């Protein structure tokens, strides 16, 4: 049963995460969550000819591992909801073409993991689908060549710059009873443009959208931050994390110590010299699938909020001087 209250959709039964997987690269392996991944590639090309093919291979791997854990075969999945950061999301399309599952491709920039989970949860809860497969990926090398400069080009990164996560996360959602992680509510984000034009300060561009989604969620669902054990944003990094912490406090909804950012969890910022933190579509996907869900199943966290944050822009829009639009989609996960 679905219940709409304000801008939040509550899911009474709540679809179950039947299986999930996290796949990463070398830098992710060296990070603090290195032990949480289901599979790690030491070769950034994953044995492929191009970075884009490597990203497809990572999605393929994440899908096969998540399906295996869920006990389902690809033919039992009703819909694939996936996305990435490459032009026209081609890695996602190639992964989909091999699976033979109907595809609804998504573009939400780095908010895609939460966006796909939110949409998948609504479709399964409503009965429109029996099962949904939500997949997200990003690759440092595909993102660099598309959004910034060639890898071997000598340039210095700003202290506010973030590092795109190389990895993919997959989640199989389905109906059913029993214990497990369930999706309890969805609150889609309103795109917000605060005029930030600095592409090396994405956290600042996305933070207002995260605050907007959080405050609408808490107000409309009549819940407070203290009802949750962990509150996450997708990839705001140090600067965005600080902005959200300060702003939410001023709004009278202090998030406190339970608030963290996936971009701050995936790497050791000092030791790995990651500047402001991790970013990319894969960032929140691998942190959620690899780390957070297993800690929920282990009983460490009961109720978790994830606001996947996305910077909706392209190299062309930035070159034309346009500002970066931020968006944040929220999902509430619980394991009772």
């Amino acid at each position: 049963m679905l219940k709409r209250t304000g801008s939040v959709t509550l899911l009474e039964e709540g679809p179950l995460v039947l299986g999930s997987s996290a796949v990463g690269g070398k830098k992710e392996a060296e990070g603090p969550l290195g032990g949480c991944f289901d599979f790690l590639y030491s070769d950034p090309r994953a044995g492929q000819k191009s970075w884009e093919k490597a990203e497809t291979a990572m999605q393929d791997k994440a899908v096969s591992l998540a399906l295996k854990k869920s006990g389902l075969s690809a033919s039992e999945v009703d819909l694939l909801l996936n996305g990435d950061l490459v032009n026209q999301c081609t890695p996602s399309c190639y992964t989909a073409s091999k699976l033979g599952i109907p595809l609804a491709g998504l573009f939400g920039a780095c908010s895609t993991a939460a966006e796909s989970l939110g949409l998948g949860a609504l479709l399964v809860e409503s009965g429109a689908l029996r099962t949904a497969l939500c997949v997200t990926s990003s690759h440092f090398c595909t993102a660099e060549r598309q959004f910034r400069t060639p890898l071997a080009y000598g340039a210095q990164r700003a202290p506010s710059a973030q590092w795109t996560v190389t990895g993919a996360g997959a989640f199989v959602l389905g109906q059913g009873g029993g214990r497990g992680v369930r999706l309890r509510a969805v609150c889609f984000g309103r795109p917000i443009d605060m005029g930030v034009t600095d592409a090396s300060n994405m956290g600042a561009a996305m933070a207002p959208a995260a605050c907007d989604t959080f405050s609408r969620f808490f107000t409309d669902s009549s819940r407070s931050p203290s009802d949750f054990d962990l509150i996450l944003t997708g990839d705001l990094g140090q600067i965005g994390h600080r902005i959200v912490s300060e702003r939410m406090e001023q709004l009278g909804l202090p998030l406190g110590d339970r608030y963290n950012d996936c971009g701050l969890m995936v790497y050791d910022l000092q030791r790995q010299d990651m500047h402001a933190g991790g970013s990319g579509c894969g960032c929140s996907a691998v942190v959620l699938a690899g780390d957070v869900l297993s800690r929920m199943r282990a009983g460490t966290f009961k109720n978790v909020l994830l606001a996947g944050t996305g910077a909706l822009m392209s190299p062309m829009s930035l070159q034309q001087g346009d500002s970066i639009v931020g968006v944040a989609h929220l999902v509430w996960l619980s394991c009772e």
Partner: protein
Amino acid sequence: MNMNMNKEAYLAYVKQVTPASPLGKDLFFSFLVGGAICTVGQLFSHFYLSMNLGRDAASTATSITMIFLGAALTALNLYDDLAKVGGAGTIIPITGFANSIVSPAMEFKSEGLVLGLAAKMFVVAGPVLVYGILTSSIYGLVLLLMQRL
């Protein structure tokens, strides 16, 4: 900071919470690395002069050697590591120009030798060439006019 903050106020706040680049450290290392690259160039220049190459030929041979070194270090994925420390010290010398041409050639090889490697080779250096040639043409015209007057 409040919910109704306007764009100007938000951008001012962002500027306040965003750490600035460590200017002193960056300047020091760009001086050090840039100076070291120029010293290597000077050593080659002395070497070619000692081989009785003549002044013009020695400076051309030095440029060729430095461009080769910049390209080779780029191909070995070492120049970007040097640039991470050296900053402008690695961009300004001629080795930086070599890096700006070789790195996109390497990157876009996956799109083919014609539309990838060759077409994208000047994606970083192209504007330098365009405006370099334009300003030197203007300079030439000014020089010509001044000599006529």
